[in-house]
């Protein structure tokens, strides 16, 4: 193993390959899009079949909270993009600060989401609660989808935040640097995906009137 004269292929899988790592991330993002794609398909079909009920149910959501959350996420996408540029220019310290800001925004998003969900619970709007079970079928479908899709999205926010936190640690350790910034770039790509999915969820649930 430790032989110094051992032959190593030029095209070794153990070489650092920024292009490969970016390609892998993009492929993974495709799978995420398809994961949510299945849900968007279900949404489309049920909305088509229950247009009036979906409209009625959507008035239960708080557009203001949704708007604030959209702004929070868009800002966080900007800060992570800036973090990548900062690292590419060699300013690791600024990159770390900007990444922390992104995580902060992620937490802010989750806090607002928490208040939104708990107000639904207070109104008895969750499967199994009396008020919910009394709703007409179409409105129940709307809330099934609302909880499932925003819940899954919130999980992705958490995963994205943890991913960025790990990268911050690696920048501090000097493993992610100006020359090897792929991992930060990938965490940014993932974060943009989380953002992008929200950009679709927001109008679908809050805005179509």
């Amino acid at each position, binding site marked *: 193993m430790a032989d110094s004269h051992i032959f190593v292929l030029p*095209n070794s*899988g153990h070489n650092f390959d920024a292009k*490969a790592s970016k390609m892998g991330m993009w492929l993974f993002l495709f799978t995420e899009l398809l994961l949510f794609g299945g849900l968007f398909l279900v949404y489309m079909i049920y909305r088509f079949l229950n247009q009036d009920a979906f409209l009625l149910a959507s008035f239960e959501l708080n557009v203001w909270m949704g708007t604030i959350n959209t702004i929070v996420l868009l800002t966080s996408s900007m800060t992570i993009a800036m973090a990548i540029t900062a690292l590419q220019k060699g300013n690791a310290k600024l990159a770390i600060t900007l990444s922390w800001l992104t995580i902060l925004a992620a937490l802010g998003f989750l806090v607002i989401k928490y208040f939104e969900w708990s107000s639904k619970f207070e109104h008895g709007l969750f*499967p199994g609660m009396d008020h919910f079970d009394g709703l007409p079928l179409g409105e*129940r479908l709307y809330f099934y989808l609302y909880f499932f899709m925003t819940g899954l999205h919130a999980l992705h926010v958490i995963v994205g935040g943890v991913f960025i936190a790990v990268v911050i640690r690696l920048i501090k350790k000097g493993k992610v640097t100006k020359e090897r910034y792929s991992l930060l770039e990938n965490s940014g790509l993932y974060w943009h995906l989380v953002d992008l999915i929200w950009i679709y969820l927001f109008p679908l649930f809050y805005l179509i009137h």
Partner: protein
Amino acid sequence: MSETVVQQPSFFQTKKGLFSWIFTLDHKRIGILYLYSIGLFFLVAAGLGILMRLELLNPGRDLIEAQTYNQVFTLHGVIMIFLFIIPSVPAVFGNFFLPIMLGTDDVAFPRLNLFSWWLYILGALFALSTLVFGDGPADTGWTFYAPYSVKTGTNVTTSVLAAFILGFSSILTGLNFIVTIHRLRTPGMGFNQMPLFAWALYATSWIQLLATPVIGITLLMIVAERVFGIGLFDPSIGGDPILYQHLFWIYSHPAVYIMALPAMGIVSEIIPTFAQRTIFGYKAIAYSSMAIAFVGYFVWGHHMFTSGMSGPAAIVFSIMTFFVAIPTAVKVFNWVATLYKGSIDIQVPLLFALAFIFNFLIGGLTGLVLGALAADVHVHDTYFVVGHFHYVMFGGAGFAFFGALHYWFPKMWGRMYNKKVANTAFALLFIGFNTTYFPMLILGLKGMPRRYYDYLPEFHDLNILSTFGSWILVTGIIVMVINLFAGGLKGKNASSNPWNGITLEWQTQSPPPLHNFDKMPELPEGGPYNYPNAKNADH
């Protein structure tokens, strides 16, 4: 064997101990880890299959209750599909041989590769834990059709989560292979100089990547429905069960090609080697893999002709299904044309490849019967379907897996199995397989429904024949497994190129060293199967 160069330590010898295996980043060791785990689950599920055949020996209850029978066929299906046949060829032989055939030393993401195996094991533990914990294994069939899967008291949640985790593992393997093929080919090897096995894996990987997430989300919806009452599929609380079937088959039909395409890739390797002849229609075979992968996305509706579907939709799905037969037939004709005027050396791997063609032909043609609208209504949910997919999955993909095992065995272990015993095992498998499953096709045409532990007395004779066949089949499996283990432990040393193959894996020693090659591999001139230019290897 007289080797001119000093042998490097093989990848078996570089490190020892359990941890050097379960935390290895070496693609060859990960391939072997998969082989042992997949092999184990295959034997478990084959045991369940034998149990079902025994129950069906006579009408009425012989061995197990109706409910137990339902759980047995579900577990048989879940293990065979998600733990054996989907990962079988890509995870074992893809991992072991794709990097070597491309002339590199590992996959693009070695750590992710190890992570995929761990996910596989986690998924397997979830699937098997239903035997011990909770209210027993699921009794829904491997398709988990709603609304029954939402309402049954058995442990569907865990089984479904197992399938979700295994799907994730499958996605990551596919992702790894795509990037490996794009980034790590040896200098001078373009896409059209790749071995056809690599092409088949490339097409497969795209299906794994683009279809699996859909079933992932569908299975999560089942879990959410069972755990939180998010009723997207159960009509009594709002949902639509037909929608579940659509989402399920959007993945699960392309998944059929996850099982079949790598098997076809193996046949495309074995046939030119044992005919010592350039493959006929290299590009046609390569691109037909991509064509099957593409068209395969648009045929899922043929599983649902009787579930309620508009006439025009059914006709479109039926026509698309017939289209899949075209690229498949292209492959079969090319294989046969490759054999024509070749110097054929009939060895066990070739026998398996030929058996693949024979079985797959029956499986494919019965598939067309099922894809035809009028015929499908007649044989839907009968033993005809059971016979058809066992011909495709077991007689096709399974036999190709066994063929690959015999073809690459000397490369993986550096030893040769007993060829006479291997021939006997093959004969038992082939005869046993056809005796088990051909009667099912006839039973189905006569109207015997599937998924019951009981049947009418007029089906008795053919069921006896089928059960008798299953005993021959299992004898064949046992003989094969023992022979391979004996060969691995005590077999004669094999040369680095016992079959005189010219793809890159035959240029390195057997078993390969940790880094696969101790010098730059040389591409054969004029394409990966250009035999006339190949030097004769030392026998």
